[in-house]
């Protein structure tokens, strides 16, 4: 019996999956043994925050030092763009500057952000080890299909295998942060169609005719009336 390394067996499995014409990004959940979740031991961030009386009109850049390494920023960027890819003229997450905000976030001295720092850095580390485990490479240099094979195992909590529970929890935190940061960027707000934050003189104009037509249609369907 030929003795395959675990790495080689995964490589072959991936090639087979590709050859079988399985749709991209929809590979079945891996039945392999994933890399173990290893919480990183991190030195606590001890910087001071922006204080209880910051200048609100001209907010200064966050006073704490950014802490992500170049490698972590790159990997976070790859994952962020898998979460929020470019779409037509709309930039991807990295194109909208999300990684700078993410770095500010995980480097902040506040308890919630420190919790996220522990989860995110451990998760990025897991992604690298899992990329090596399955494909013998760093995550960023995997093919898109290989990257998505890993992501598919952790992106859908309702069908996540127990062995991926912690990486999936990491991915959920990353997803909420990246999506929040993207959609609160000017580009993301434009995509959502937010039209407020502009002064209007006189009475508030209220819903448009189009918005009311949609509401009336829904009211009819629900058997409700104003």
């Amino acid at each position, binding site marked *: 019996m030929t003795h395959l390394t675990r790495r080689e067996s995964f490589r072959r499995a991936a090639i087979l999956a590709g050859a079988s014409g399985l749709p991209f*990004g929809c590979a079945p959940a891996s039945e392999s043994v994933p890399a173990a979740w290893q919480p990183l031991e991190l030195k606590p961030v001890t910087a001071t925050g*922006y*204080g*209880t*009386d*910051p200048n*609100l*009109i001209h*907010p200064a*850049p966050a006073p704490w030092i950014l802490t992500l390494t170049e490698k972590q920023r790159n990997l976070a960027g790859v994952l962020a763009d*898998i*979460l*929020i*890819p470019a*779409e037509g003229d709309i930039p991807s997450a990295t194109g909208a500057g999300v990684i700078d*905000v993410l770095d*500010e*976030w995980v480097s902040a001295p506040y308890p919630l*952000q420190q919790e996220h720092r522990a989860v995110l850095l451990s998760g990025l580390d897991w992604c690298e080890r899992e990329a090596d485990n399955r494909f013998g490479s760093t995550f960023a240099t995997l093919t898109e299909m290989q990257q998505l094979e890993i*992501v598919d195992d952790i*992106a859908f909590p309702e069908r996540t295998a127990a062995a991926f529970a912690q990486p999936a929890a990491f991915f959920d935190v990353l*997803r*909420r*942060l*990246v*999506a*929040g*940061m993207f*959609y*609160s*960027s*000017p580009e*993301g*707000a434009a*995509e*959502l*169609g*937010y*039209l*407020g*934050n*502009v*002064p*209007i*003189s006189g*009475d*508030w104009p*209220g*819903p*448009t005719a*189009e*918005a*009311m037509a*949609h*509401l009336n249609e*829904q009211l009819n*369907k*629900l058997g*409700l*009336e104003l």
Partner: protein
Amino acid sequence: MIVVGSGAGGGMAAYVLTRAGHKVLMLEAGRDYDPVAETPMFNTNAEAPLRGTRTPDKHFGFYDATVDGGWDVPGEPYTMADGTDFLWWRARMLGGRTNHWGRLSLRFSPHDFKAATRDGLGADWPFEYDTLAPWYDKTETIVGVCGDNPGLDDIPDAAPGVLHKPPQPRVPELLLAAAAKKLGIPTAYMHRAILTRPLDNRQPCFWATPCGRGCSIGAAFQTTTSLLPLALETGNLKIVTDAMVHTVAVDDTGRATGVTFVNRKTRKPETLSARVVVLAASACETARILLNSRTDALPDGVANSSGQVGRNLMDSTGASFTGLVPALENRPRYNEDGHTGNHIFIPWWGHAAQAKGELNFPRGYHFELGGAFPAPGMGAGSSAAGYGLALKERVRSRYGAYVGLSLRGEMVASDDCYMEIDGEVRDQWGIPVPKFHWKWSEHELNQVAHGRDTARQIIETMGGQMHNPDQLPEEAIKKGGEIIHEVGTTRMGTDPGTSVTNEWGQTWDVPNLYVMDGGVFASNPHKNCTLTIMTLAMRNADHLAQAMGRGNV
């Protein structure tokens, strides 16, 4: 005379007294603050650290107006009894909490002033609604309140011409109202202290930028753009900031002689004398001052022969119920900012059911209705699932499709809820701190359970699904103090044995010592307390000004 505090009560007291020709020295614990120069109008979340999200430095988010405050004030701790989880919000700035409050301005109703007569719980107020009605009219005229008179028993009418025109409801509010209507539950325009026509030097709302940041154009009421500048115009007001008052001195004849404060800049105590002292430092700060003023002659504190100072501490009950409504998904976009608060709400509709004994809780609540296309912040990520274009499609379709019903209800004063002075802990100014005791009773828990079930019915009638529909009331109810409506610690009444002040806010024990903040509330109806704090302060400062004019104080 001295007025301690520059918020709702102190601001109104100074306004009335200075216009009546009396010289007022106002002492404010926090720093000077100018909303015209300091309000971040139109700043976006993207311009703020951490996208403006809340942090321990800024508990309501980066742009919230609160200066040096929140649930924790640096160097100013408070303590709690075992089993108590109480939150005490403070702001250390001119104008106090009026700079960031929700501006919800509902009158108490005839029902509200006589609840104890009806159900035997807590205490009645020392007057009827009709006594206060003309003062509500005067207060609303100066403050500027938008809303209307729907003729419901929970919302007394304002005099014609007093209220400003309210903005019409948004689409999600209309759908909520339609669902409520099917269930026989009324909705009405929310009353908010927002101008929709000009007043004095203040401009009407231009329908943008959240009120919690403060309002540089003065449309959203705060004392720093209205009552304080108007009082300063008289030439009779002097304001001293960074003055942390900790005691009132009383002489052998039982009269107040003045106050002592710590100058926060020099960290040294200073003493001032005055003919009259008005405390409006907020319910818990005022009770703290009175209790900390104890002497050998007055071992229980000043104005505390009844033993009621610090007792009867009440907040509003609070709970938040939210749900996703498919009928609101992918709806046409328009600018839904409005006045950035709820345009309509559900007033308490259960007086008749309570009278018939059909409900298992004695006091009412209201729902503040939420639903709009919000200014995108970190919350925009909460609807994300999966990844890629599917994630984006889902976030877009669910934008503006969530609704919320925030319950705000009346709690009943209880022996379990009070504050005293901690015998050991002092703040950075050397002042002994309050120690809080708190426990919700069945009255509040049953009320929140009713609210949860009602919110669920409304959301399901809209075809939506409520998050966490089986949450226990003990889990759903917010913490004591969390709604920031703390009142009752120096309650007014008709009996010096069971109350701290008479109906004029004049302490029974010390005739030239008045309380003009929420401490004087005899009960805490579900409507937010600020409008009534200002109305009482106006009526009582007017009474005081006249008494002084006659030499009767």
